[in-house]
């Protein structure tokens, strides 16, 4: 995917020069291996900073809400779906955006590579089409990208952007996933005691830093419920009741809106897979409403729509 960088810079230059947009939101190369930094490019300055590789894992849709300018934005499949969610939820207007689509072959998970390296440090990481080459003090490994993808990418059914104005490469083949929710089913089958134990253990290391919430494009409320202080709804300590309340309520706020982009899991400094909560709700939205978030800019999320001909009597 590294070759997309050149095409991204080329398109960005063109749309800035043609004044189609006033700024570009993309990624720049990180200061350490396997990291990238979201960057805002204005008026053609620093255009050469725009960069792409298999570690552009944050969701750039997160930087859109409430912006007024005309914006060029780089979007993988999941990012484009979150842009669609923003458009549906009136956080940004379609005509404000020039979406530079990136057909995505999956993002590589730096944690999985670090785990493989045990406590050794990757000093230089490069990539080819299929491989990641990791070099450090006295070692060099060539790893298959496919073996180190982020968990969400291994389940992704929408690798190509769903809306875009230009595209940086040929569309990639969408994956045929026989059962994208097998992991959720395993949890569904647990008894309630076991489930409680499972989730309590999942979040036991949470420090309430809110990186998961803040990396999420869906979390744009002006004041999050955990930050309400008058009255205060949730305690501030790391008491497990409050931590559980935060995670469960946050997940429910994402029901029918989450694209499983994985930004929450990637942002967590304590390696907590908070996606296990949101994925259950994604599965429910699919099972109950045949809805996957962000596939259209017309369809509202199932939990904020009302149809007079709803098949359930109680709601009519």
């Amino acid at each position, binding site marked *: 995917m590294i070759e997309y960088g050149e095409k991204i810079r080329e398109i960005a230059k063109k749309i800035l020069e043609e004044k189609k947009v006033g700024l570009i939101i993309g990624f720049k190369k*990180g*200061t*350490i291996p396997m*990291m*990238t*930094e*979201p*960057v*805002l490019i204005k008026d053609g300055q620093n255009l050469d900073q725009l960069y792409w590789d298999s570690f552009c894992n*944050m969701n750039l849709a*997160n*930087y859109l809400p409430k912006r007024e300018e005309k914006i060029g934005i780089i979007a993988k499949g999941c990012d484009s779906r979150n842009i669609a969610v923003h458009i549906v939820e009136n956080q940004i207007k379609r005509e404000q955006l020039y979406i530079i689509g990136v057909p995505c072959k999956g993002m590589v998970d730096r*944690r999985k590579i*670090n*785990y493989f390296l045990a*406590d050794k*440090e990757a*000093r230089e990481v490069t990539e080819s089409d299929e491989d990641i080459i990791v070099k450090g*003090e006295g070692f060099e490994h060539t790893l298959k990208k496919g073996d180190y993808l982020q968990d969400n990418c291994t389940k992704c059914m929408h690798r190509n952007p769903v809306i875009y104005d230009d595209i940086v490469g040929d569309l990639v083949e969408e994956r045929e996933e026989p059962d994208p929710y097998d992991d959720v089913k395993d949890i569904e089958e647990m008894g309630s005691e076991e489930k409680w134990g499972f989730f309590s253990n999942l979040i036991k*290391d949470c*420090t*309430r*830093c*809110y*990186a998961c*919430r*803040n*990396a999420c494009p869906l979390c744009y409320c002006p*004041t999050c419920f955990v*930050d309400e*202080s008058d009255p205060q709804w949730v*305690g*501030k*300590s*790391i*008491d497990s009741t409050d931590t559980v309340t935060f995670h469960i309520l946050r997940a429910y706020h994402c029901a029918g809106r989450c694209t499983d982009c994985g*930004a929450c899991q*990637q*942002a967590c*400094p*304590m*390696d907590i897979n908070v996606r296990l909560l949101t994925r259950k709700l994604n599965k429910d939205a699919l099972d109950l409403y045949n809805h996957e978030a962000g596939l259209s800019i017309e369809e509202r999320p199932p939990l904020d729509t009302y149809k007079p001909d709803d098949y359930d009597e109680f709601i009519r």
Partner: protein
Amino acid sequence: MSDKIIKKEELQDFLKALKKAHEVFVPAKEKDFYRFNPLTDENKGDLNFTNTRLSPKSLLFPQSERIFEYTLDEESSDAHIVKESSKDYPSTVIIGIRPCDAKAMRLVDVNFNNPEFKDPWWVKHLESMTFIGLGCNEPCSTCFCTSVGCGPFNEEGLDVLLFDLGENFLARALTPKGEELLKQGGVDKDANSGLKKKADELKIEAENKISSHVPTDKLKEKKVDDLFNAPFWDDIAFACINCGTCTFLCPTCWCFDVQDEITKKQGDRIRNWDSCMFPLFTLHASGHNPRPEKVQRVRQRFMHKLKYYVDKYNNGVACVGCGRCVKSCPVNIDIREVFSLMNDL
């Protein structure tokens, strides 16, 4: 100052001996990262680690700590009287703390333990602890301790410093508390001059391995207003998602919030870590927020560490170069770049 030798195969005996009289914490791997956990029969510790994900500050300054309690039961003669929560401060030994984190304790001490103010909980925790540090033979590429008045074998804040010499640890006692502890642990074999020399060489070698350097020389002379109004803050802050990762992982971030929590008639006053990244951190009761935008909060974090602290305490920067925030920031905001921008403005 005395240099003793601990054979690696005798390390567990040393730890066991210490455990008879103290609580002992050791680095242990859980999930994919290390943390300081109590020494037990199951957890023997693992000194082949780089550093812990979270800094060890939580051992002295827990993320949530009950400090006062009270009852709202009108029948009780103590109703509404706030009392300090009783707490044990058992003698505790921290094994394998890295020199950067030990220096960080000294730095936080400037805030919590000074002639003007004494934070009783911090002071009592600190007094109950003995720090046996482990020098860094292999610093990471994100370590920049030598630029900020620290180093891979820095002694500040430690009672004993361990040098990993392969088959042996050389244990350098730095305080009377450290001397006493080695004696208690049955460590009495003096290091010969050859091993002492090897330890000193190891230190220089490790310092030379630090590949990351930041400039600090001009921070003091800069005008606060010039830095405050510098043109680079918008660029630095753009990517920031305003989470608390940097502040919670940082060994020198000391800010806290105090909250009352009431269960039925029992009230607890709890001190919790807070973060200048959060909008709530500065929200006034009036509803006014002096730092409503993320750029102001990002600026505050760096100005506090690299300018306000420098000016107030004349003690260098409020950063020990551990690199945790560099490694764990989800959007790669790198304090080393901010050092350069601020210093070279």
